[in-house]
């Protein structure tokens, strides 16, 4: 254990806010990283005695009112050492720049009392709110890539068994019900490699705030949770760069100061490569076997050898982050953030015989004929996101702060599986196109303004507006010509919100808010009241609760496809065929916290309406000779409830840190079309226990995670029959059970990892080794059924088995 003493540098750019000659003052400042001068958002600043506290805004700025000039400030931020120091008459006159030291760094100036807090998460900052330190995630077991969303799945209330999705199933919700914000813009799809990794490069992210429910009026458009990611600004002090390599991908990051230290530029990227490790993961989530898929294509011959093609599918993903930041002065901060991530799977092939001379066929009189043949199979799967946000924030005064954001987000998903065969002769040409083409393209143009006004030390107003224009295109073509589905949804939402946070006697914090949204498609106004409280019974015991209404206007539809990866696309609700989904959250909890430990309990109840289950299928319409076949969309509408209890016991300090968590939950849906009684939703999981531990041995770090969860529900056949098709083959069909009437076996998994930090000629390196599913548990993903000679066989399809992985990272500074 290192010394509990460390240092700060206090830069004295004076900005006195003394309100009177009394000993109480208004102090303001900025919390930054001591090594890179990067602003630290959502840091906690506590004034002692009295426990008055606040959090820094997204630019690291904070204000405390009526602070005694002899008080002590305690500053906490995940991944950084805690800092406390006593104010004095000089310091309170300044605009403080508080420089927090990342864990493991040594500075050499003013030494004040500090303690190391080797935490990965901070769960005590609000109702259902958890902060995560991306910097510390590397200590957890992984697939070589530290992954923010995978780590969030280890938290209570979030399903940790969804190996095939980086999306979050929060308190019985589904991933599309989560609002994912990255530097202010909405990200609509978070999966790489069929969901095995999240689309975010954790090297480019400095802060993650997760709201599992009961979130405030500044957030809207989703019914389950909010994940707010803040990208790194970049080093304002000196040039820095880093490289990383795992068995799956390589990545690089570069950051440099600009504008005489007032600004910075950061560029980070990563790309996968087709190692055997990558291929194993790829195969485990698709039926494609790169080796087995190596096909030989042989075209019709002529006076030459047959053309042969050896073919192996090509697959990769990449993402790129760039951010340009400029702090013009103490008041104005500008940032331009850019993100692009993409997955690409190419299974295409071409067989082509250019025109050639050949002998005539039987009956052709032996004449020579001009002939050409070509067959082009296009099998492309491609999805990804583009996003950009331009931010201007201004601290108008100690009391008033504004943050304006102009953003663009694009999610695209294309599957092109078509075959075009062309046969050309001197006088005839025959073309034949088969296959499907599916494209979803979502565009989001948003402008948002958030304001915070400190009426007094105990009263903070937040208000603002957001206007979003959505354009969503969805095309589904069959045989290159038949349009099965052709949707173009266009709509906008215009929202105003207001909330007031009142602190009473430094014990009770009440926040009341209202969000109203005008939705252009239904031409209706939707009101969403929000209310939350926390009450400090003592220094250690806190009660908390929240209630709120939430609406969602854009819905993601998932078309399950085991063999090729599920297809998803977004639609805008119209409240006729596609319902506007709504949720009411009720949350009640308590926590008990000491310097070493946190025990947190929260119970939740969510009432859900406007749920939609979607299917497209071939359906017949009309009667008799007018009977036709169409692809039709079916939206089944239902309601539901989600309720549960979460318990978190966290050890926050010491060599051994981590947490134990338990969630008791239930998600019930009611869809008349499926069942006359409520049934458990597919994501329902009654019990889930998780243990996460990290043991710090200085340069060595050992970690382990264990997940145990009761099985999820599924639908099974109860009977079967077969039909002899016209070609003589027999097709099997199933009568099915009650919807989700059975349960898969319990899920459990142990992961272990070790990492080592080393100094390499003044630079830093880290080596890591991870073992996923150490005891090789065959957790069941789904079941497959087939009838063989009159008997029904059931096959369990398992999730990933034991998988070791390695990573190495290097940073110049």
């Amino acid at each position, binding site marked *: 254990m290192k010394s509990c003493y460390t240092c700060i540098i206090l830069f004295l750019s004076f900005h006195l806010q003394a309100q009177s000659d009394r000993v109480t003052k208004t102090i303001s400042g900025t919390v930054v990283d001591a090594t890179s001068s990067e602003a630290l958002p959502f840091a906690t600043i506590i004034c002692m005695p009295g426990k008055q506290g606040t959090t820094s805004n997204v630019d690291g700025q904070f204000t405390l009112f009526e602070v005694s000039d002899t008080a002590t400030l305690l500053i906490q931020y995940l991944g950084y050492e805690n800092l406390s120091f006593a104010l004095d008459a000089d310091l309170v006159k300044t605009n403080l720049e508080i420089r927090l030291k990342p864990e493991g760094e040594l500075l050499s100036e003013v030494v004040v009392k500090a303690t190391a807090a080797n935490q990965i998460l901070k769960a005590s900052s609000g109702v259902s709110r958890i902060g995560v330190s991306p910097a510390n995630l590397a200590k957890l077991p992984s697939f070589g890539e530290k992954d923010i969303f995978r780590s969030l799945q280890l938290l209570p209330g979030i399903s940790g068994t969804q190996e095939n999705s980086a999306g979050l199933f929060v308190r019985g919700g589904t991933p599309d019900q989560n609002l994912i914000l990255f530097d202010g813009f909405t990200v609509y799809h978070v999966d790489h490699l069929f969901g095995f990794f999240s689309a975010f490069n954790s090297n480019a992210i400095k802060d993650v705030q997760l709201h599992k429910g009961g979130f405030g009026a500044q957030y809207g458009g989703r019914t389950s949770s909010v994940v707010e990611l803040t990208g790194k600004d970049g080093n304002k002090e000196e040039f820095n760069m880093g490289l990383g390599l795992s068995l799956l991908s390589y990545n690089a990051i570069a950051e440099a100061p600009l504008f005489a230290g007032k600004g910075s530029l950061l560029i980070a990227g990563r790309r996968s490569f087709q190692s055997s490790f990558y291929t194993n993961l790829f195969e485990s989530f698709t039926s494609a076997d790169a080796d087995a898929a190596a096909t030989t294509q*042989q075209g*019709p*011959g002529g006076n030459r050898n*047959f053309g042969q093609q050896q073919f192996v599918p090509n697959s990769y993903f990449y993402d790129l982050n760039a951010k340009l930041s400029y702090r013009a002065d103490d008041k104005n901060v500008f940032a331009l953030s850019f993100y692009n991530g993409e997955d690409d799977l190419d299974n295409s092939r071409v067989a082509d015989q250019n025109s050639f001379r*050949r002998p005539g*066929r*039987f*009956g052709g009189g032996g004449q020579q004929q001009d002939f050409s043949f070509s067959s082009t199979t296009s099998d492309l799967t491609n999805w990804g996101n583009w996003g950009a946000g331009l931010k201007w924030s201004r601290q108008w005064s100690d009391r008033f702060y504004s943050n304006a954001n102009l953003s663009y987000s694009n999610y695209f998903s294309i599957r092109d599986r078509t075959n075009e065969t062309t*046969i050309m*002769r001197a006088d*005839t040409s025959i073309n*034949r196109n*088969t296959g499907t083409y599916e494209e979803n393209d979502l565009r989001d143009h948003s402008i948002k303004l958030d304001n915070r006004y400190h009426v007094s030390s105990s009263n903070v107003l937040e208000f603002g507006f957001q206007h979003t224009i959505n354009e969503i295109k969805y095309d589904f073509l069959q*045989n290159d010509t*038949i349009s099965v589905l052709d949707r173009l949804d266009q709509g906008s939402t215009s929202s105003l919100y207001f909330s007031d946070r009142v602190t009473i006697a430094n014990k009770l914090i009440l926040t009341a808010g209202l969000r109203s949204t005008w939705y252009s498609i239904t031409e209706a106004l939707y009101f969403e009241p929000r209310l939350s409280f926390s009450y400090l019974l003592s220094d250690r015991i806190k009660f908390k609760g929240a209630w709120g209404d939430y609406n969602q206007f854009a819905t993601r539809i998932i078309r*399950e*496809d*085991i063999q090729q990866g599920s297809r998803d696309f977004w639609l805008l609700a119209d409240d006729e065929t596609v319902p506007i989904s709504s949720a009411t959250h009720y949350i*009640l909890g*308590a926590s*008990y916290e000491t310097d070493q430990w946190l*025990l947190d*309990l929260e119970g939740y109840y969510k009432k859900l309406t406007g749920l939609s289950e979607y299917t497209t*299928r*071939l*359906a*017949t319409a009309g009667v008799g*000779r007018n*009977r036709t*076949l169409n692809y039709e969309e079916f939206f089944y509408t239902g309601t539901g409830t989600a*309720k549960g*209890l979460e318990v978190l016991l966290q050890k926050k300090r010491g060599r051994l840190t981590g947490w134990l968590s338990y969630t*008791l*939950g*239930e998600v*019930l849906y009611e869809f008349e079309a499926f069942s006359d*009684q*409520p049934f458990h939703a597919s994501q329902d999981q*009654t019990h889930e226990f998780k243990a996460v531990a990290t043991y710090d041995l200085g340069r060595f770090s050992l970690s382990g995670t264990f997940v145990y969860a009761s099985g999820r529900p*599924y639908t*099974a056949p*109860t*009977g079967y*029959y077969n*039909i002899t*098709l*016209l070609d003589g*083959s027999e*097709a099997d069909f*199933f*009568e*099915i*059970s*009650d919807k989700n*009437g059975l349960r898969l076996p319990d899920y459990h998994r142990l992961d272990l990892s070790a990492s080592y930090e080393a100094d390499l000629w003044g630079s830093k390196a880290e080596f890591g080794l991870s073992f996923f599913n150490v005891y090789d548990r065959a957790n069941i993903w789904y*079941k*497959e*059924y087939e009838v063989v000679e009159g008997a*029904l066989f059931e096959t369990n*399809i398992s999730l990933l088995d034991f998988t070791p992985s390695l990573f190495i990272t290097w940073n110049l500074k």
Partner: protein
Amino acid sequence: MNINYIIAVLICTFLGTGCTEKLNLNEFASQPIVEAFLYAGHEIDSIEVRLTTSYAEEDSVISGLSDLTIMLEEGANKYILDAIGNGFYRYPIKAVADQVYTLRFEYNEQTVEAETYVPPLHQAEIETNRIGMTRIDLSGGPGGFGQIDFPDPIAITWDNSNSEHYYVSMANIETESDPVISRNGEVIQRRRRMITEPQIIDNHIINPRADLSEFGTYQIIVYRVGPEYVSLFESTGTTSISLNDPPTNVENGLGIFAGISTDTLYLEVEPL
């Protein structure tokens, strides 16, 4: 306040409302399955009605329903089908193209009913009905087919201006197999029947190298099928994630009642 008390109250509160009793699977209730195809111009001789088989039953004997009174209607004409045993029924008339048929019977106090349209006959054309291929003997050892000449692809075409669903089957109908490729006089390829999927198409290409493995007569049938058959054919849910009720055009039952028209072509493959 005692923290243990608080925790206990919270747990009890949510445990009390946290779980409902376990949902039970529905009792297996066997349903009547109809399997009936009406071929335009062919006798109605293979309408089958049976029961579904329970997953839980170890004995998978198919239960044909032979004691039903099944009514077949075509316009004003009504026929009561003759039971011929094992759940099969027939009637000595030919299905008429461009007509709508209804099948109806009572089972378990419910009326099971299905309707289909028998599509008109159509004509397909083949580019040639004779083709020559080189006999290939691999007895000489490996070396592939590199220098062997195969004929051009052969097109089969038909009119499909109404965007109907067609598919094609092709099989060699010789009693004895005479393979194009052999080794020491032995057959090295199994006889096979080629079948396409129902699609909205107006042609089919025969690739001699891939599709014609034997000498002799090939029978090629071009099927025109109705929407009920296509929706059944496209049904692929076989996993716990994708299981859904199977498509059917039978009310109060399962299976298919479908009208079909065909055109049959022949292709002679002769050795060069």
